């Protein structure tokens, strides 16, 4: 397939990219921005970050947020806008072009205040994300990631209740821990290609539903013993390692499903790949 024409095309595209690459050395800038809590009303927080390292933590000293951002000022500019009850954070592209040489990774370290209820919308691309949502008051959560390596942890219980938490994962290695602490009625995971690990540990306040739509990849469900688990599988070419589960009709259930204090139903729609259930203490 890669005969002369293709090679020429690829070379031209690469050359165009090189032309856009700034010749000058990379100029990194550091921005620290924070805001006090001025109202206890719910805040809608949107965070967008393209590439680099991305961390999220909670903080508890009267601040709505604190953001430390290191970025290439030739390419990006910081965004920190608060208007009404809407907070927009992250970086925005200053102009087109891709830096191909001497690239140094940027970093966004975000701390969000525990004292205010939040609808949180995280959107990041090719990043290495380490996110701990523990202790926040989340009333809604939407997380969208592209080609990233992401770890989401909910280290302590959410102090508010979420209707539906959504995770949209592109081509990524995605790990979510202690999802029970999210205090969500429903969790939706829409994964494209990659490796997904979902930890269903944590403190479940009520029975919940987890919906997983996966294209191509491997899914590992880490389930604490004692949690009732039911899997409804609708898949094309997907294998299920159903250790510790018993098949009843079209569903797989944990042995203690009937008497479990908290029950989680997983609706699994997968095309190609493997699904593994790992029981943890």
């Amino acid at each position: 397939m890669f005969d002369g024409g293709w090679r020429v095309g690829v070379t031209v595209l690469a050359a165009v990219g090189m032309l856009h690459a700034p010749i000058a050395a990379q100029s990194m800038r550091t921005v620290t921005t924070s805001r006090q809590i001025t109202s206890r009303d719910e805040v809608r927080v949107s965070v967008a970050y393209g590439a680099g390292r991305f961390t999220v933590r909670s903080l508890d000293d009267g601040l709505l947020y604190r953001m430390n951002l290191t970025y290439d000022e030739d390419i990006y500019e910081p965004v920190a806008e608060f208007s009404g009850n809407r907070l927009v954070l992250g970086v925005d592209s200053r102009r087109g072009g891709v830096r191909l040489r001497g690239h140094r990774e940027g970093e966004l370290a975000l701390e969000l205040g525990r004292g205010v209820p939040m609808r949180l919308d995280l959107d990041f691309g090719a990043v290495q994300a380490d996110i701990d949502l523990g202790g926040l008051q989340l009333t809604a959560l939407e997380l969208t990631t592209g080609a990233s390596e992401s770890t989401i942890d909910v280290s302590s219980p959410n102090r508010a209740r979420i209707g539906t938490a959504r995770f949209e994962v592109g081509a990524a290695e995605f790990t979510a821990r202690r999802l029970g602490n999210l205090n969500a009625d429903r969790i939706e995971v829409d994964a494209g290609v990659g490796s997904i690990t979902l930890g269903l540990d944590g403190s479940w306040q009520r029975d919940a539903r987890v919906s997983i739509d996966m294209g191509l990849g491997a899914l590992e469900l880490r389930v604490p013993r004692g949690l009732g688990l039911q899997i409804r599988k609708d898949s094309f070419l997907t294998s299920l390692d159903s250790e510790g589960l018993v098949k009843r009709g079209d569903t797989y259930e944990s042995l203690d499903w009937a008497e479990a204090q908290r029950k989680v139903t997983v609706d699994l729609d997968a095309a190609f790949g493997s699904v593994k259930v790992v029981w943890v203490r």
Partner: protein
Amino acid sequence: MPVSHIRSALPGLVLSLAAGATLVALTPHDAVAQVREVVSKQVSVGRASASLSLEFADGGRLEVTFEDGAVLVDGESIGSYQPGADLDAAWRSLLGQAVALDDGPLAQALRDWSAPEGLTGSPAEVAGRLDRALEDGVRAAQASGSQTAATGSGDAGSLVRFLLGSGERLRRIEEALAGIAPGARVHGFEDVVIGPDEVVGTDLVLVQSSTRIEGAVEGDVAAIGGTLELLEGSSIGGSLRLADATLLRNEGSIGERLVEVEADARELEAELRAELSDEIRRELRRELRNEMRSESGGFSLFAPFRPVIRGVGGVLENLVAIFVLALIGAAVIAFGGEKVDVIAEAARRAPGRAAVVGMAATVLLIPVWLLGFIALLVSIIGIPVAIAWLPLFPLAACVAAIVGYLAVARNTGEWLADSDYPWTQWIRKSNPLVTTVGGLVGLMLLFVAANVVSMAPFLGVVTGLFMAAGIVVTVLAVEIGLGAVILTRAGRRREHWSAYTADEAWEAAMKVEVDVDDTRGETDV
């Protein structure tokens, strides 16, 4: 009092409240309280510039920037600096502290900042101006309202936050303060007791306070937040207006009327909700009626003609599709030239092979697209190509399918031209565009037939059969075409070179037998 007067008086009253509260809060040992409350900060440090941007609780801003040799305060230049010199270093050091500080301590640090020792000349002057700018910027506004009455508050910041916290609250405050005269006695965030023998000769404003009235208030009372008790024997000469406030006990007398601002708002909200739900109910009923009418085939003048209208519409759709594809075909023939011939030839000579290749390609399209994208992402050089790959690959696949389909249509047109079917005499093989159009009509004939048959009653099954056959023919044509495009590398490689010699080609074209005798130079026909 007119609304405009209330609105104009409101900021003054708010300022009085805030300033009064601030004055009470100010004491020599509490220096932090002398600075403005910082609600937002941004510290930005780069190679060529270093800036600090503050937003205060009163809505004010302060921005100090060292950039390209100029020192700017709120966008105005106050002098210049030498990058890397003492002043620049001192400023960056201050920003280093500011990163870790918020609100009071931050404002305090800025106020306490002073020019570095050892500076002389112009840098010293600029540092002095910067020092003054910082002090002026973070210093709290002094109370100047002569109308400020006796007030008390433990927390000026809380009062300001409470007052400016939300638009809705300000609206309620505005309503509650209607009729309050300037010079009113104001209390905020404290316990207030009007004793049994005490008489307040003015209006009384209570903000988020816990108040007990045992004596008399001659004017109006406005309570915003907090609680209010009117004990036995107490009296209010004017009105009592409550905004988000709770009246715990009402054993006193109110001269005019009791107004609950929040209650008014709630009533209005309830009315709006009721109106909205009525409107939704009416809308649902209307929709339901329409739905039931259409489902039950309710009486309509056009009802008998519906199948005909639908059928004619379908035929028109088919004709438009043929027209659009013919336009694309003209462009393909004009720009594709011989490549289209090569694709058509491959499809004609080995339709089975082309169909298999096309089907395999259809199945593999999405995996190849995804895997190609991932493979390109692996290398940095591949990232821009990967970005182009995402939209261009599906686009290329669509173009290949359309071009292939048109090539098959051309073959179909040629076949129809050679056939003895009626209505095919207009297809001339000498004109590739006409041949293609003829082929398109042929390929879509089953759809046209399905639409025509659908106009007649009781022939739904036949319509379905025609439609299914049309879909099969179209899918086959697309797969054969796509396969031919792939086999010929988009028409750049001949899959089958012509097996004809020049004479055999003549024979095939003329449908005659040719016997050539080179030695005699004669031809027998």
